[in-house]
């Protein structure tokens, strides 16, 4: 069996809401799978079923490291780590005490538990704060501690439920670095996120959820390719030149007409990479200076818009 996490036809209903509706996914050992979708798309429910917190699922099967999450929850729990959306650490305890608590619950002897706690405190840059109550921690410190706590038992599989929600860019980068390092060390990671950038940065594979269903799956590059190939972007230095720029490149990007957005940028599907050179030549010949000129893959925002007909950050009225 190659897949460390294997989910087939998973479904879960809460009252009248079908939170997860027939999800299939597989995560290979040592890779990061990004579960992407807006609020209420079923990401958290899927993770909670996989982490044995919600059971049983109404339909389908889920196996983690070969163990069925419903039939053998203890075997699953022994080898997973979980970092929740709301940083589930004990605010009234110190950082060290939080780590020792989990180490003791994982049956590490006293001395070993202390040593493991000290090791993780140092690795996550919490040495100065280790003896302080978590209540006094910043959001970034708390999230790092949360991640550290989920690693106490050296899990083979790590579930990260929106690990960087609410973090500033610096702390977000720290968490990202740590996730990359874990995957390099062979940990299998399932990560949920609403941030397309995060998925792009971390995930080897992506599964896009909407209304509890998988609407797309594949590598980030494959998903982008599915949505469309490279696109030509031109931003004239002088906004007034925009109509002239459009006119000079229009036949290069035929048959689709170039689109112009509110910021004064032209975008158009590029049928082949040579378009870039020819566009540059023409703009130069017409003496139309540009601020930006390039070929880009569509962003995951474009992916989401294409797949669902709405931007990723515009969830629909219902929230599950």
């Amino acid at each position, binding site marked *: 069996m190659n897949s460390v996490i294997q989910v087939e036809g998973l479904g879960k209903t809460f009252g009248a809401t079908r939170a997860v509706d027939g999800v299939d996914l597989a995560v290979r050992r040592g890779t990061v799978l990004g579960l992407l979708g807006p609020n209420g798309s079923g990401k958290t429910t899927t993770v909670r079923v996989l982490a044995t917190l919600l059971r049983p699922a109404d339909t389908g099967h889920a196996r983690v490291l070969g163990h069925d999450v419903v039939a053998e929850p203890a075997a699953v729990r022994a080898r997973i780590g*979980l970092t929740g959306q709301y940083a589930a650490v*004990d605010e*009234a305890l110190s950082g060290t005490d939080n780590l020792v*608590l989990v180490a003791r619950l*994982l049956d590490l002897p006293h001395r070993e538990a202390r040593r493991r706690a000290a090791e993780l405190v140092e690795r996550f840059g919490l040495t100065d704060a280790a003896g302080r109550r978590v209540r006094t921690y910043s959001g970034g410190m708390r999230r790092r501690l949360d991640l550290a706590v989920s690693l106490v038992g050296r899990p083979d599989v790590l579930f990260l439920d929106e690990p960087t929600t609410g973090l500033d860019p610096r702390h977000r980068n720290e968490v990202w670095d740590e996730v990359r390092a874990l995957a390099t060390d062979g940990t299998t990671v399932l990560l949920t996120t609403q941030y397309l950038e995060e998925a792009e940065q971390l995930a080897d594979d992506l599964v896009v959820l909407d209304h509890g269903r998988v609407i797309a799956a594949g590598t980030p590059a494959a998903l982008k390719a599915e949505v469309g190939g490279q696109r030509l972007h031109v931003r004239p230095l002088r906004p007034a030149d925009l109509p002239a720029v459009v006119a000079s490149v229009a036949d290069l990007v035929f048959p689709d007409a170039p689109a112009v957005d509110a910021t004064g940028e032209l975008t158009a599907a590029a049928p082949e990479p040579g378009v870039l050179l020819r566009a540059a030549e023409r703009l130069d010949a017409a003496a139309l200076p540009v601020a930006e000129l390039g070929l880009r893959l569509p962003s995951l925002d474009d992916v989401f818009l294409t797949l669902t007909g709405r931007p990723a950050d515009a969830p629909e009225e219902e929230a599950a």
Partner: protein
Amino acid sequence: MTTVMTPRPTAPTPVASRRVRVPAVLRHSATLAWRGLTKTVHSTEALLDVTLQPVIFLLLFVYVFGGAISGDTGTYLQYALPGVLVQTVIFASAGTGTGLADDLKTGIFDRFRSLPISRTAPLLGAIGADLVRYVTSGVIMLAFGFLLGFRASGGVLGVLGALGLVTVFACALCWVFTALAMVVREPRSVQGIGALVILPLTFGSNVFVPTATLPGWLQAFVEVNPVSKVADAARGLLTGGAVAAPTTAALLASAVVVTVFGPLAVTLYRKRT
């Protein structure tokens, strides 16, 4: 991978697995009880709740009401202390519900449940830590009472008996507040509703005033209120008087509360978590 043998908690072989699992549950519960106590010790509010509250209760009731009810505070101290002891542990047992609601809300229980420990360990750990809190509050109150001049004619055995009895009652009552926490969810609401339950139970009893001074309809309530029975038993054990009948009634009331609310609380807990 499917050939790997793993313990199946859903279908345990009765004898063999019980020998292995019971110590693990107790060990994990003890660890979680340590967490609860560490939390209390690190938190000034929680610590004051356990230590200062019984002292303030005793001072207020004895010096505010003592003269009016018994003529002098010394006499009233003898009458009221056993009852205030009961009241103290009842308040402490309501704290069990607030603490659990808080844990459920913050998501720390999800963390515990993602670990390979028994599902009941977090509940047992919380109650274990609270048991220590009940006893601590009770001991502080008694010690302060002796400082104020309380005389326990029942001797050491009487004091230990009274402390044990009120602790048993608090442990029984904590299932009511545990069930409440599972239904209400919001810690502040648990505290509010808890107070609505506690105030009539403690004041509508013979904790502060002898039953005979009350209007007839209230006497009827006070007579059946288990708090009165526990207070009577504590009074008997500490200062002399009937012991057997009120103690039996108090233990019976505790047993009834546990029988009704224990399974209810555990069912709600399992459903909730």
